[in-house]
């Protein structure tokens, strides 16, 4: 059972404080903040204890979401609850930041009041909560109760709250690891791990059943025969408990009655065997130039289909300790590169990287007291990027339908995004 819940800003300001059981005084907030800021980087901060009171916290949106308890509960439950609280706050307030929490504190108190009673979790379902929540969300933006402005589907006239699109977005988080040799050969893929999920955001006032059709050739599990066609395959998948799967086996159709807000309908994983080549290939060469200088020549190729583009690509290359300065030759003016001595790394950023293109960059790094062993410190290269309109597994939403079809203003959109989580290339 939870004794208190509080939300702190990263500077330690009290944003929300609710005491459910009256067991502990308000001082525990300060105790917590002192403890969490005193930790060094390698100490796990998730669970901390002080005189029999345990603090469990999650960090979301730069804020501390803390639950304190005197019992010994399941850490999974508490952490997932805190994450859920943060997600609900985001749903209601549009975004998750110190400002939005400050502005909507009355709403968050109301949420907490309905979600937890006497330290026991009552409900976190949006469907139930929406009946009880009376406070309107306050936002600095005109219509950001459900932050959809980035999609651009809304015109000014669609701001009535009745109009709401139903949305499916498939968001695989891709992390893959390639091993590359200094030769010009293709590297060997060492580890690839794709975590994907299909989320729906639905803001229809009364929602009937939604049918989500996936690729018909989708196969699940490793044992199944792949056949000759380029079947879409995932290793494992898990569904939200409200999803009806009676048509999934034959037609790959998910049926769900979505509640308002954001929901994860399906999560899937794929390890090691990617259906397509990893999106980036790197051809590096690292040489010792003359005294005290390292030459790093990177050739980066984007193996996406020509129509797609990678966005916000940033490449981090560790450089030897003590690097002082760097000169660079980049192929286009919109790219930037800088040396970060504190992280002993150089950062190369490419805002837009079209599929099929190849970019190269030459960095000359000055390292006083360079020895040949220092070259060992160069690498592994890590990359982060975003691939819009792209899924690495090839999983697609074939259709997205409401049944019975609703008349009037309902709009829908489907968005595919791939985020890199940890894309590392050894040199």
């Amino acid at each position, binding site marked *: 059972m939870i004794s208190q819940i509080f939300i702190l800003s990263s500077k330690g*300001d*009290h944003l929300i404080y609710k*005491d459910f059981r009256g067991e502990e005084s*308000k001082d525990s907030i300060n105790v917590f903040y002192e403890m969490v800021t005193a930790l*060094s*980087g*390698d100490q*796990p*901060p*998730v669970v*901390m204890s002080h005189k029999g009171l*345990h603090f*469990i916290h*999650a960090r979301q949106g730069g804020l501390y979401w803390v639950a304190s308890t005197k019992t*010994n*509960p*399941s*850490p*999974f*439950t508490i*952490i*997932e609850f805190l*994450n859920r609280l943060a997600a609900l706050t985001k749903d209601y307030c549009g975004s998750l930041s110190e400002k939005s929490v400050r502005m909507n*504190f*009355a709403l968050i*108190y*109301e949420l907490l*009041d309905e979600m937890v*009673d*006497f330290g*026991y*979790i*009552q409900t*976190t379902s949006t469907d139930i909560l929406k*009946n*009880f929540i*009376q*406070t309107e969300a306050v936002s600095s933006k005109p219509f950001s109760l459900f932050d959809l402005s980035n999609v651009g589907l809304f015109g000014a006239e669609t701001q009535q709250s009745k109009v709401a699109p139903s949305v499916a977005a498939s968001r695989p*988080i891709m992390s893959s690891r390639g091993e590359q040799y200094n030769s010009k050969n293709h590297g060997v893929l*060492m*580890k690839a791990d794709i*975590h994907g999920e299909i989320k729906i955001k639905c803001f229809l006032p009364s929602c009937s059943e939604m049918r989500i059709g996936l690729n018909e050739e989708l196969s699940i599990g490793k044992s199944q025969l792949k056949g000759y066609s380029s079947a879409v395959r995932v290793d*494992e998948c*898990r*569904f939200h*408990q409200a999803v009806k799967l009676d048509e999934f086996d034959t037609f790959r159709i998910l049926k769900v009655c979505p509640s308002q807000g954001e929901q994860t309908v399906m*999560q899937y*994983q794929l*390890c090691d065997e990617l259906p397509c080549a990893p999106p980036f290939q790197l051809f590096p060469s690292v040489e010792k130039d003359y005294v005290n200088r390292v030459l790093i020549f990177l050739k980066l190729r984007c193996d996406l289909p020509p129509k797609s583009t990678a966005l916000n690509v940033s490449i981090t290359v*560790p450089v030897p300790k003590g690097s002082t300065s760097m000169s660079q030759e980049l192929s286009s003016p919109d790219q930037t590169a800088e040396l970060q001595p504190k992280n*002993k*790394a150089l950062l190369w950023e490419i805002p837009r990287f079209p599929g099929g293109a190849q970019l190269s960059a030459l960095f000359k790094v000055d390292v006083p007291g360079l*020895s040949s*062993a*220092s070259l*060992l410190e160069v*690498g592994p290269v890590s990359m982060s990027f975003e691939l819009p309109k792209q899924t690495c597994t090839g999983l697609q939403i074939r259709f997205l339908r409401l049944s019975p079809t609703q008349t009037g203003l309902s709009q829908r959109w489907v968005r595919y995004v791939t985020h890199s*989580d*940890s894309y*590392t290339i050894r040199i």
Partner: protein
Amino acid sequence: MPYFGSEEMVKELKRALSNPNVQADRLRYKNYITKVIRYMTQGLDVSALFMDMVKASATVDIAQKKLVYLYMCTYASDKPDLALLAINTLRKDCADPNPMVRGLALRNMCNFRMPGMTEYIEQPIVAGLRDKASYVRRVAVLGCAKMHSLQPNTDIDGTIVNELYALLRDPDPVVVVNCLRALEEILKDEGGVVINKPIAHHLLNRMKDLDSWAQSEVLTFLLRYRPRSDDELFDILSLLDSFLQSAHAHVAVATLRLFLQLASAHPAVQADALLCTSAPLLATCGAASRELRFAGLCHVQQVMRSQPGLFGTHYKRFFCGYSEPTYIKFRKMEILVELVNDENVALVLEELRSYCTDVSPELAQAAIAAIGRIAQTYSEKCLDILTGLLALKQDHITSAVIQMFRDLVWFCPQSTAAVCQTVEACVDSPQDSEALLWLLGEHGDQISSAPYVMEGYIDGLKTELSSAVKMELLTASVKMFLCRPAETQDMLGRLLHYCIEEESDVCVRDRALLCYRLLQRGVEETRKVVTGPKSDPSMSVLTGRQEEPISQWASTFNTLGPLSGCDLCPQTAVISAADQPSSSAEKELLPESTDVTLSSPDDTEEEISLSLGPPLSHETFEKMWLDLEILQRQTMGFPRPRTALDTLQAALQLVKIQTLAFTPGATVPWKAYIYTRSTGTLILAELLQGDQHAPGIDESLVVSVKQQPVNQHAIRGFVSILKGVLQTLNVDSS
């Protein structure tokens, strides 16, 4: 700025709230109320506004009501008299036709934490339990628990308890779970809510209707149910089977815990359940939320204590992502070390090697330590990597590598030659002095430049700050003198002179005097004292993990225990917490120990059971030994058994006493360090024979016992068991 001039602020608010113009304008009025709550959250004392807030509670606007109630609950205990004024409004609301208003009023009225509240809330609660709206019933059920917590020492109201038991059959799932929670609190002194067969089966059948939070809570309650027969057990398990794969990690893990507990007599079922849950557990290890990921990793570690092979094929999942925080990377490296086998060793080492040059020195050192641990099995490959790292000439890396070399030489003597060669090549900029000095002293004969390196240290002695380094230097120099006297004699003289004449630290001076006098007695005498074993491969068994039975950790599974184990000896902390409930089970498991206790001649103690538990590392033992006080020192009255030391070790092992280290047979004084565990405590002991400080009892064995946490009963039991063993051995050998 609410923190300054707060009194002004409160006055201004008071003026505004009592202003009839403001009261007439609903929006403005509500704005001021919001402001009050905002200041309250920031820690400002706004209790002076209580009267005005009570007035504000009489409104039809539910949002405003909620804010005012929040205020009243916070300050009710400070202003009990004024709070009574609010009760009338609240009781009126409890009879409102709108169930939401009824529930809200009842919940907040129960939240007033002040004495004498019971008489006002009892009647609305009883009415609420029979309300037709499930929302009100939920609130009322928990209200019973709140009422009980207001006056914890009064008698339990039997009618309410019965009513709550009846409400377990309520159609609303949240009411059902709330009943369990309320009963658990009310009946805490009697052992909590009773889960008998009908209730357990009813709950199991309702599982599908519950939401995930309720599911995991019910699963926790079911932990205390014991099925009557195997048939019933398997029925329950098959009913719960699908929950092992739940999309919610907390449900899957709670189910696993229940499986492990219920099927404790069926290892095959346990293994199946672990296999089933390995997928969701692995998924949490890759979850988007770092905290969840961390919790997953900690639990994977726990599972691996019994089933190290379960995640073997998934080792790549534990490779670190570069954006992960350090504490997650640490856990992942610990897991990787455990997962190494013949097939993946090359890849794992390659991965760990790339962490060794990380920006964070702690992470780099931990990666080197991980390679060092793998080196105890795959020494050749690891030595190559470690040697390569030395070439980087970075202080924190070199120092960590040399420490690993020292451990490696100690555990795997076969790698000595290779290590010496490497050390030879790298000693021009030595960093970790203690480990390096130990290596130089111990293996000076194989490192040709050793005396010169040591000379460098002796010359720089005046600037050396750490007394530990100086002591190590003394020992190492004496050892070096024994194998290469010609090169060492001169500098040893200088060293001893400095340490005896100029050193201010008493320990260092004593050590120097000891060395000096030893050398006066002659080289052979010195050799006998100074040279100990150069390595001890058998020790690696102690530091390596053995497979533990699942029952060792099942009781802390899915609790905070595995996550907060960040102190020096996490395992002991976990074990000691775990042992208390399962001590009876342990007694059954360990028939030998009780046998021995009974056969011991002067045994007047009650039975006490010892257990081995996970092995302690040398560092942990040393740290604890230095930290703890001696609780009991006892002269055994007989010398140590004349048997071979192996026999002694084996005999102690038989009664679950673990031997950490002992001096070789003929040395005087003879010492041995042993430890064991018993019902939640860890007992450390030293056996000593021939103490120079007490020459009178030269021939008798002295036992010093330390313990954490203190439990005198366990100590007495331990000493008598130990005595029994030693006496038996003495009889055997004579």
